[in-house]
C-alpha cells in the first residue's frame, strides 16, 4: 500500500526524521535549508526541535542528544557547515551513539549565497558517511537510512541536498503506515575513553575512525542506493545526486552507475562498472569529488572542454557536453527578448527600518563593514552605504581590523539582530578587550528576516511558537563593559543622525541598537500611506535618496532634468521616512 504526497526535499527530511524516530533537531536558518526545521516543527509532538543560535551550537546540541542515546538531526546551508565543523571533526572520532544525521544544503550557482562550496569535501575531510539524494523520494528514504548507518557504523551521517533538490517538490510515497517511529534508544554509559578525546584516548579513536571508513566502504558497494542501470556500454556514466536526473534526460540510452552513497566511495563497484563499459564519464555537481577519486584508481575518464565543475548543473549544460562528445544533438533554439530591459533586483521593503540607517550612514560619509541579511541590500544604489560583506558576524572584526590598519574617518560595522546573536557577540567583546573605537550598529528588527522571518533570541518566541526570554542587546553590551551603548528608534531620522554622528565620532568603542520591527513580520506593510502634494514638491530629489520602492518618479520639471516624486499607495507602508526628508513639507501621511 502507498500514500503519495508532493514534498520538497526539505519537507521530505522532516517526514523521514519523524518516521525514523528522531527525538531532537536543531538548526540555524539559511537558504536553501531553512524549511527543514520549519517542517520538523510540524512533528513537534515527537521531535523536540529548536532554532539554534548558530550552526555550531545546533551541531553541539545534536551531538549531545546523540551521546545521550537519542536520534538527532541538524540542518544547515553550506556556509553553515563551516561554522559547525569544529564539534563535527571530533565527534567523528568519538563516534555517534544515537544516530546523528546532518543535512547540508549546497547552493550551486549561488542563488542566495555569498559563495559556492561543495560540502562533500568537508564530509570526506571529517570521515563521515554521505548520502546524495536525487529527489524528494530518495531524500525521504536516505534520511531514514542515514540514521541506521549512523548507528551501525557509529558515525555522523550526512545527507547533501542542493538548492534544486531542497526547493523542488516531487512525488513521495511515504507509506500508508506513516507515523512517528520509536527506535530503541541507545543507552548512555559514562565512558571517558570514548567521550573525552584527550591525546591518549584520541589516538586509539583515530585508528577506529580508519576502521570505520573501511567498513563503510564495503557497505557502499552493497547498498541499493548505489546501483547500475545498464544500457549501451559504449559509454558508462558515473553520477550522483540531482545530476542523475539530467543524465537520464540527456544521455538516456547509456549505462549509468547511480551513486546515492558517495563517502566513502564504493571503490570495488566503481572498478567493476568501469571495466564493463568502453568509456567512463563522470557527471556531478560542483567539484570533481567523485571524478578525482575515480582517476586516482587509475581509471581513464573521458576528458572534455565543456566546463562542468562550477555553478549549477542543468540539462542545457549536459546537452552541450553531449554535442561535444557525440555530436548528435543541438541545443534547443532559444529566442531572447530581454535586451535593454531594466533589471529587477531584490530591494529593501518599503518602510524597512534598515533603510533609515543606510540613508544616514551615506549622509555621514561613513565606511561601513556589512554582514549577511536583508540589510546587505544597503550596499546598492541609491543607498550605497556598505563597503564589505564577508560572512556571518564578520563585519565587527572587519571594521576593527580596518581601524588597526590605520583606516581613518568614520568607521562602523552594521549587523542584524539574528546575525549578532549568531556570531557578533564575540566580535564586539574583542573590540572592547583590545581597545578598538569602532561603532557596531545592530539593526534590530526582532526577527531573522531574509530567510523568511524565523524567531531568534530577541524575538520572544521559539521555533514552536512558545514564549521565550527576550535578550536585550543593549544590556548585553553594557554587561560586557561597553560604556557607550545607545538605543534609537530608526524611524526618527533626526535622532538617528544625531546618535550615529556622536557615536561614530567618539574615540571609544560603542554599540548602537537601531530598532524598528520588520514591517512584514509585524504585519505593518499596510500600516498607512503617504502622499506627495505635486504643487508643493520642488523636485529636489531628497526623498529619492531613500531608494524606497514606493517612491516613484512623477512629473518632470520644465527643463526635464529633475522629477517630482509620487508615492505608490499600494507599496507605501506609511513609515513617514520620506516625509522627514522633505524640506518643503510636500509629503503628508493621509491615513
Amino acid at each position: 500500500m502507498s500514500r503519495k504526497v508532493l514534498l520538497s526535499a526539505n519537507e521530505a527530511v522532516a517526514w523521514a526524521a519523524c518516521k525514523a524516530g528522531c527525538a531532537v533537531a536543531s538548526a540555524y536558518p539559511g537558504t536553501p535549508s531553512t524549511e527543514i526545521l520549519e517542517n520538523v516543527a510540524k512533528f513537534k509532538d515527537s521531535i523536540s526541535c529548536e532554532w539554534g543560535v548558530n550552526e555550531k551550537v545546533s551541531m553541539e546540541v545534536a551531538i549531545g542528544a546523540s551521546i545521550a542515546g537519542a536520534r538527532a538531526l541538524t540542518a544547515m546551508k553550506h556556509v553553515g557547515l563551516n561554522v559547525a565543523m569544529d564539534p563535527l571533526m571530533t565527534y567523528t572520532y568519538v563516534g555517534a551513539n544515537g544516530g546523528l544525521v546532518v543535512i547540508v544544503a549546497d547552493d550551486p550557482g549561488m542563488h542566495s549565497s555569498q559563495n559556492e562550496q561543495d560540502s562533500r569535501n568537508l564530509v570526506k575531510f571529517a570521515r563521515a558517511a554521505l548520502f546524495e539524494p536525487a529527489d524528494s523520494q530518495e531524500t525521504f528514504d536516505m534520511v531514514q537510512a542515514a540514521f541506521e548507518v549512523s548507528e551501525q557504523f557509529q558515525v555522523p551521517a550526512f545527507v547533501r541536498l542542493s538548492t534544486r533538490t531542497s526547493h523542488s517538490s516531487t512525488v513521495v510515497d511515504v507509506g500508508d503506515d506513516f507515523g512517528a517511529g520509536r527506535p530503541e534508544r541507545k543507552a548512555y554509559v559514562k565512558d571517558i575513553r570514548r567521550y573525552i578525546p584527550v591525546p591518549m584516548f584520541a589516538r586509539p579513536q583515530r585508528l577506529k575512525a580508519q576502521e570505520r571508513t573501511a567498513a563503510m566502504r564495503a557497505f557502499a558497494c552493497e547498498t541499493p542506493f548505489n546501483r547500475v542501470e545498464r544500457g549501451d556500454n559504449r559509454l558508462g556514466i558515473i553520477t550522483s545526486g540531482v545530476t542523475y536526473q539530467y543524465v537520464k534526460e540527456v544521455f538516456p540510452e547509456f549505462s549509468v552507475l547511480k551513486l546515492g552513497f558517495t563517502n566513502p566511495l564504493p571503490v570495488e563497484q566503481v572498478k567493476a562498472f568501469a571495466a564493463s563499459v568502453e568509456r567512463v564519464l563522470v557527471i556531478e555537481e560542483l567539484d570533481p569529488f567523485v571524478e578525482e577519486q575515480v582517476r586516482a584508481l587509475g581509471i581513464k575518464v573521458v576528458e572534455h572542454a565543456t566546463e562542468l565543475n562550477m555553478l549549477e548543473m542543468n540539462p542545457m549544460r549536459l546537452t552541450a557536453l553531449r554535442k561535444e562528445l557525440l555530436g548528435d544533438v543541438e541545443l534547443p533554439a532559444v529566442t531572447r527578448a530581454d535586451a535593454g530591459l531594466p533589471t529587477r533586483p531584490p530591494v529593501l521593503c518599503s518602510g524597512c527600518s534598515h533603510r533609515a540607517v543606510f540613508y544616514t550612514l551615506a549622509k555621514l560619509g561613513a565606511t561601513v563593514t556589512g554582514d549577511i541579511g536583508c540589510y546587505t541590500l544597503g550596499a546598492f544604489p541609491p543607498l550605497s552605504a556598505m563597503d564589505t560583506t564577508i560572512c556571518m558576524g564578520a563585519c565587527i572584526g572587519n571594521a576593527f581590523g580596518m581601524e588597526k590598519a590605520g583606516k581613518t574617518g568614520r568607521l562602523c560595522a552594521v549587523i542584524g539582530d539574528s546575525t549578532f546573536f549568531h556570531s557578533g557577540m564575540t566580535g564586539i567583546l574583542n573590540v572592547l578587550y583590545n581597545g578598538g573605537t569602532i561603532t557596531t550598529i545592530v539593526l534590530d528588527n526582532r526577527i531573522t528576516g531574509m530567510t523568511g522571518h524565523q524567531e531568534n533570541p530577541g524575538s520572544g518566541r521559539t521555533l514552536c511558537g512558545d514564549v521565550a526570554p527576550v535578550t536585550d542587546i543593549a544590556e548585553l553590551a553594557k554587561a560586557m563593559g561597553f560604556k557607550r551603548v545607545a538605543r534609537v528608534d530608526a524611524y526618527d531620522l533626526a535622532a538617528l543622525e544625531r546618535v550615529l554622528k556622536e557615536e561614530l565620532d567618539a574615540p571609544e568603542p560603542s554599540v548602537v541598537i537601531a530598532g524598528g520591527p520588520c514591517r512584514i513580520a509585524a504585519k505593518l506593510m499596510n500600516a498607512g500611506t503617504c502622499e506627495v502634494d505635486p504643487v508643493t514638491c520642488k523636485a529636489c530629489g531628497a526623498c529619492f535618496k531613500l531608494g524606497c520602492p514606493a517612491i516613484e518618479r512623477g512629473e518632470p520639471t520644465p527643463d526635464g532634468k529633475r522629477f517630482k516624486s509620487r508615492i505608490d499607495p499600494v507599496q507605501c507602508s506609511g513609515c513617514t521616512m520620506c516625509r522627514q526628508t522633505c524640506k518643503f513639507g510636500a509629503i503628508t501621511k493621509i491615513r
Partner: protein
Amino acid sequence: MKTMNVSLVGVGGQGILLTSDILAKTAALAGLDVKKSEIHGMAQRGGSVISQVRFGEKVYSPIIPDGTSDLLVSFERLEALRWRHLLAPGGKVLINDMNMTPVTVSSGQQAEVTDLDERLRAEYPSALYVDALAVAKEVGNTRTMNMVLAGALSVLTPFSAELWHQAMQERIPAKLVDMNLKAFEAGRARAVTR
C-alpha cells in the same frame, strides 16, 4: 502523455509560488509524475521570481531547459519579455495585464521600456491576456489575483476544473477557499487574445 513544461514568472509577492504549488498538486492528483522547482530566497520581495512545473508519465529533470516551455505564464508584462528564452517554438503564453515598475526605473537609475506593447505584440502575437487584478477586484479581494491567473491557466492544461478545485481545497486554508474558488472560476473565461 508527453511531459508538459510550464514556467511561471513574475515579481516576488505576486503569489507565483502558491499558483505553481496548486498546478503541481493538480497534476499529482491526476496520477502523473510531477516536479516543481522554484528559486526564491533573496527574491522574496520585489525581485524577479520563477517557478517551473513539469508533469507527465515520468519526469526526470526539475529544471526546464531553455526553449522548451510549452506554456509561459507571466504575472507581469515586463517579466514576460525577460523570460522569453524559456518558451518552446509554438508554446503558449498567458500574460497578466499588469505593469510593476522596477525600482531601478522608478528611482531613475535605468530607462523605462517605452515600447512594451509593441515588443510584446512582436514576440507573442497570439498571447492570451487577462487583467487578473481587475477580475480579483470584481470578485471582492485583490489578494486572489493569483487564483484568477490559475483559472486562466487551467484551461490550457489537460486537467478538469474539478481536479483544480480539489488541489486548491487541499492547499488553501479552509476559510479562504470559497473566495479563491470564485476567483479561479472568474479567471477561467477571461483570458483573451489581442
